[in-house]
């Protein structure tokens, strides 16, 4: 279980921030206002942010600074939002994407 680094020998105490409530896949969690959604989820021990659209394999953060798009989630109904770049707000509804139908391949599997 990942957790917050409250005290740091050089960086000192963690910055005081408001606590906010948000949901991820219909479960309720607490996070710190304006931290990234990715950080809030990791602090809650959540690593799987989505399942791959084609293979269904679980995926989490990779680059954490917006380059790789591995952490894309749905935020308040908007798809493809990068969790690592998006500040957490009170009442946010975050959902992970899942496997999508691959019609041609599925058809072939069933008819081969």
């Amino acid at each position, binding site marked *: 279980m*990942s957790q917050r680094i409250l005290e*740091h*020998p050089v960086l000192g105490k963690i910055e005081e921030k408001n606590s906010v409530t948000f949901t991820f896949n219909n479960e309720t969690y607490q996070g710190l206002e304006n931290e990234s959604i990715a950080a809030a989820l990791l602090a809650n021990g959540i690593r799987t942010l989505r399942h791959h659209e084609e293979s269904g394999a679980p995926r*989490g953060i990779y*680059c*954490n*600074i917006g380059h790789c798009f591995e952490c894309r989630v749905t935020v308040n109904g908007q798809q493809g939002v990068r969790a690592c770049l998006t500040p957490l707000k009170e009442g946010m509804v975050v959902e992970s994407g899942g496997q999508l139908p691959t019609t041609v391949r599925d058809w072939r599997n069933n008819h081969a």
Partner: protein
Amino acid sequence: MHDVIIIGAGPAGLSAAITCAKNGLSVFVMDEYLKPGGRLLGQLYEQPDGSWWNGVNESSRLYDQALDLGVHVQLHTPVNNIEKTDTEWVIYTEGETYYTKHLLLATGAAESPVPVPGWTLPGVMSVGAAQVMTNVHRVKPGERGVIIGVNALSSAIAMELKLAGIDVACMTLPKLSQVTDHAAQPKTVLDSLLHVSHMAPSQFVRLGSKLMKNDFMKKLGVTFYPKNGVKMWDIPIQLRKAVVEIYGDGQVEGITLANVDTNGEVVPGSEKKVPCDFVCIAGGLYPLTELAAVAGCPFYLIDELGGYVPLHNERMETSLDGLYVAGNITGIEGAKVAIAQGETAGLTIAQNSGVDGLDREIEESIQAIEQTRNNAYIQFHPHVKKGKRLLQEQWEEYVALSDKNVPNQYV
């Protein structure tokens, strides 16, 4: 309309913004991240004088100074495209479109991925991701990690993880393959490791850097490199082992480590499991140059600078009118060099905007970059200066061709 738009609120972009604003220009800085500072944010290391270089503090210092000077900084703004019309640059973002005469690209660097079997499992991340989680967001990436890839960046971050109380089981190499290539060859890695050796408390590594000046000695060094590795900040560094696979059911549970010979080939039957709950992949940094590419800048592949870099001169001007570059987009170096480059870019932009009497200041700022480079504590590539010289030669060739009015390859 602003006199200058700067893409990237890292050390280069902010220092350029400060310099432009001091010279009376109106400045607009945009960045897609949620905090200003760029890659500087995560940095944390002890300097030779015993003080700490704290990226979070340095970032807010630059940011506050920019704001005090009236710079407009807009975060959460990804730029999709840039384009030159007859008279100005057009910057397309996810929201609005902006226009300016002078555009500075200070987009920084990105990390090269190293595909290792199992690397898409949740819990596997780039080493920079672990750094940002730890030092900026103050959330542990996990309890016990393994770092794949031994280089200046990963060595520094391994130490930062330790500092935050996170266990690093070991630093090691990826298994040799077509894609991992140099990063998996113990000799090449030792070469880069020797370059950060002054940071290492380990006698082996420190002594090694003095002894292993030539290739023969390095080969010898790898041959006699202890099978169980050496320790740096109490972290075992395994150059004679390699990660065959990252395993786990739904998330990282560990890595499979095997012995390798001096050429990086796996010794069959030597596989061993190392439990961990996160894995960092350290493939090194490369300049983030897409916007310079869509703008039409000529590019050169210069390994010493970390990859493809857009053609530019010492004044940080590209070959395109009104387009400038500063920071890691010009080659991988430390934040202090980026800050110095930002100053030069800012002064050049001010001069090109009509501010008089800056010749000497620009000259001095160019020398300051060189000085900062010479004093750099962490050098990402041992031959950065050679890389800079190669690019400068390309620029001179380019100018010579343009002066003769010869239609050339760039037009």
